[in-house]
């Protein structure tokens, strides 16, 4: 069996990133789009920590991952507040129906 190295983790994070992009592109519901964003942030975090372990960066990758997690929490709170407001105003959270600015 091949020893698990940096490439294995990079492949996992690439696939996770692609799935996040897929969710953002195809989903209609705004909350599922947010879930896609969370998947992408997790993929980025795996990369940070993998390079922190296999590169010569000390613990800086861990710190970046912590900062990303904090920003993800703030982003989720703000985005859900916006989604709640959209639902209150338009009675839908399907982002393909929220196109008032187009008119």
């Amino acid at each position, binding site marked *: *069996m091949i020893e*698990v190295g*940096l*490439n294995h*983790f*990079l*492949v*996992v994070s*690439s*696939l*996770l*990133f*692609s*799935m996040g*992009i*897929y*969710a953002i*592109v*195809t*989903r*209609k*519901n*705004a*909350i*599922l789009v*947010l*879930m*896609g964003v*969370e*998947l992408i942030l*997790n993929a980025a*975090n*795996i990369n940070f*920590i*993998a390079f922190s*372990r296999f*590169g010569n960066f000390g*613990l800086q990758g*861990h*710190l970046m*991952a*912590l*900062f990303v*997690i*904090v*920003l*993800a*929490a*703030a*982003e*989720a*709170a*703000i985005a*859900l*507040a916006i*989604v*709640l*407001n959209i639902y*209150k105003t338009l009675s839908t959270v*399907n982002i393909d129906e929220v196109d008032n600015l187009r008119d």
Partner: protein
Amino acid sequence: MDYTYTAIFYLFAAITLVSGFFVVTNRNIIYSAFFLLFTFFGVAGIYVLLGADFVAIVQLIVYVGGILILLLFGVMLTNKITNVEIKTGTINVIPAILGVGFLSGTLIAALVVSDWKKNPVGAPQATTAMLGRLLIEEYVLIFELLGIILLIALIGAASIARRQKA
């Protein structure tokens, strides 16, 4: 010993990727949210395998305990609760599959072919004390800024989500 590590890695990678696949393809929003739970658990396991114990715990606390609950509240507050089947539609599936396939192929090829400078890895050590020192000494400005950002985000989210008196 090595085989154990490899097996555990493949286990967590499979948990992460399979449940991530269900997150992005399941039509039921609640099921997607619960599969996201397993994805976050799998990612936390991968952090542990990479020797990042503190980040793994923070991942569990913040993502599973915080963000996921927030997302579930969002699902419940933006759908009619009486409606048992909470479904969602999809758009642009075929172009998205093509684009995402191309993207992931390119990413994996680029990342795997690249000749990364590798350092010999030792046994993982406990990181919490070192992270605490770094946060207070070298990165104290970013640390404080993150605190301010969280405060602003909390106040902003509360004032956005509050029902306005029109």
